[in-house]
């Protein structure tokens, strides 16, 4: 009964492992990040495979931002101001983020926003 009223607290589940059933959407793929490569090149193999998902996620954030500020000013601010922020970030993160923007074709400001979202989200 408890799971049909908020907070839908269930009795403690058992025998859920190995994962299967409706709470398990899928396993997670492994990739190697070669730290011997220049920072701007490290993420290229991964991004080459996942860029469509990255573009789609960032588009969802943009849609939400445009819902708050229909003029599009907020996105403009991100695309103009945040690339300047990229140069202030410590190495190797600045170069890695630029490499991700190059590899994915996502504007640099939007990749920066994705990577500092934890601090921004507290707003």
């Amino acid at each position, binding site marked *: 009964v408890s799971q049909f009223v908020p907070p*839908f607290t269930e009795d*403690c*589940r058992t025998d859920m492992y190995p994962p299967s059933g409706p709470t398990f959407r899928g396993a997670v793929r492994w990739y190697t990040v070669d730290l011997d490569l220049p920072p701007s090149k490290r993420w290229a193999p991964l991004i080459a495979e996942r860029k469509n998902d990255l573009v789609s996620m960032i588009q969802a954030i943009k849609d939400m931002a445009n819902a708050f500020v229909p003029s599009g000013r907020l996105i403009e601010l991100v695309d103009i101001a945040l690339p300047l922020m990229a140069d202030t970030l410590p190495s190797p*993160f600045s170069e890695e983020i630029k490499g*991700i923007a190059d590899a994915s074709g996502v504007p640099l400001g939007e990749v920066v926003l994705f990577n500092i979202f934890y*601090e921004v989200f507290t707003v």
Partner: protein
Amino acid sequence: CTSVVAEDSKGNLLHGRNLDFGLFLGWDVKNKSWTISEKLKPLVVNLDFKKNNQTVFKSTNFAGYVGMLTGIKPHMFTLTMNERFSLDGGYIGILEWILGQRDGMWMSFLTRTVLEKANSYEEAKKLLAETKLLAPAYFILGGNQTGQGCIITRSRTLSIDVLEIDPKLDRWYVLETNYDHWKEPFFLDDRRTPAMRCMNQTTQTNISVSTLYDMLSTKPMLNKLTTYTTLMQVSEGKLESYIRDCPNPCMPW
């Protein structure tokens, strides 16, 4: 988020976490789901960071995000971070950064630096407790010896508290959601109580990767914001992750 470090009766340390993100960032009425949480799930990847073809550390990440939220330095320590809300928040840190005061670290760059550079639980703990941050956070750290598990509660400038595993006090696990452990959680978001009830019901004798996954699969620790579950075993150097769904009825957070 729900993070837990537990010591089994043989002294092995286990570390598990649910990564919940996307609150208030768009609700999909038709699918009863959070837009951003659903967009993040296809981006979940496991990463093996190598140098000279040797594993330095492993993590579960969102592709395109260079910082760390969940990681293991095999045979040394395991690290997760949970969001901490405070009025002295990240927006102040960002303002200081823009104004040129840059002595703080971006949270996920610190966790990445710790996983890459620290070579022991104690060294990791010191860095996480003492480095100035731009935003408050909870760092949940597991080591490779008995008693090595803690929750570091951080403000931007201070280490407010460190709660450690203490077998003498029969505290065989430490568990963090998104509230200071010495305060009651927000009553509409109490995931701590059911999580601890399940851990206590499991008992130290029976804690394992499998029963840790059971707890993290129980509502409301599993909720509509949960994107992935990660389980780590430091002594085996093992990290495993699973993308999650929460069938209705399910708490939005």
